[in-house]
């Protein structure tokens, strides 16, 4: 069995392994950045006020800030470039179902719908396995799809000739 060349994957719908691996990287990166930010805030507060600030993992405030941070991390990344850090590592890209670039509004919808995919034992992710275009619940909600897009710049270019409804 001969291996497919990298170019032949470009533009095809990305499967579960690439997407899960990129999500794990994103989780590590975003959680790491969050911890660094908390540590920096603690250090700054201690320097300025002299009081030691400690963060409790079970605190609802911290959980809320973390959720907002994750939402911002994924939403802003998808809106800005169609990919997060982990997706960039694995060369996958979020686009609209017609192949055009994801708009910020759809990126926000995708980010808001993303947590719902984890409900009921990650039932929302089942679509990545069984759906022919590997679209999860948040993809269906936002009208998006995830494709392979790496290699030589310009090999896969997001379509710009598609008219959008706004």
């Amino acid at each position, binding site marked *: 069995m001969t*291996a*497919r060349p*990298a*170019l*032949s*994957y*470009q*533009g*095809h*719908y*990305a*499967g*579960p*392994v*690439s997407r899960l*691996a990129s999500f794990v990287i994103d989780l590590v990166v975003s959680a790491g950045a969050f911890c660094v930010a908390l540590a920096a805030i603690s250090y700054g507060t201690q320097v300025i006020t002299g009081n030691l600030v400690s963060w409790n993992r079970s605190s609802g405030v911290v959980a809320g800030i973390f959720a907002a941070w994750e939402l911002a991390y994924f939403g802003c990344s998808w809106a800005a470039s169609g990919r997060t850090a982990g997706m960039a*590592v*694995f*060369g996958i890209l979020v*686009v609209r*179902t017609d*192949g055009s670039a994801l708009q910020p509004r759809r990126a926000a919808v995708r980010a808001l719908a993303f947590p719902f995919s984890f409900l009921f034992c990650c039932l929302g992710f089942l679509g990545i*396995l*069984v759906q*022919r*275009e*590997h679209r999860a619940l948040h993809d269906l909600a936002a009208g998006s*799809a995830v*494709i*392979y*897009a*790496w*290699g030589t710049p*310009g*090999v*896969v*270019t*997001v*379509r*710009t*000739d598609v008219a959008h409804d706004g």
Partner: protein
Amino acid sequence: MTAERRPFPILAVVNPKVPPPSARRRAANPAEALAQQVTERVVDLVVGALDVNELAARVDVNAILGRLDIDAMLRKIDLNSLLGQVDVNAILGQVDVNGLAQRIDVAGLAEQADLGAIIAESSGGVAREVLDAVRCQAARLDEVIDRWVGLLLRRKRPAPPALLPAGADS
């Protein structure tokens, strides 16, 4: 002891076995010497009067070289034999490698070579290749899982085409 006495003293000077030189030969010897002296003198005068630069300027070197069959000449030369006669070790033994190395301006060379850019380019290329290999591996696993799921679900239709075909610039 008595001194040897020759019956004919002239035989000490003349060899009777050798025929005497002819009259022409006897006249020619002084003439030859004179002619040689005259020729040498003439040659000296001619060489002194010649303008070698002007002569060289008149020579059409290209025409001469055009007549030469250099390929044929080179074919006749046995380069292997020539090279076999060269004692490379002896030549290298005479070379002061340390002295040569000390004369090389390594810092200047490194400055001109922009080693930083070379290292960055090579390491970037290696990183890109590793990243591409990882991406391909993940994509292959995706493909395998997709095939299994297709078998489980008994899909008959082929996989959907690429959303954006490779090479599309629209």
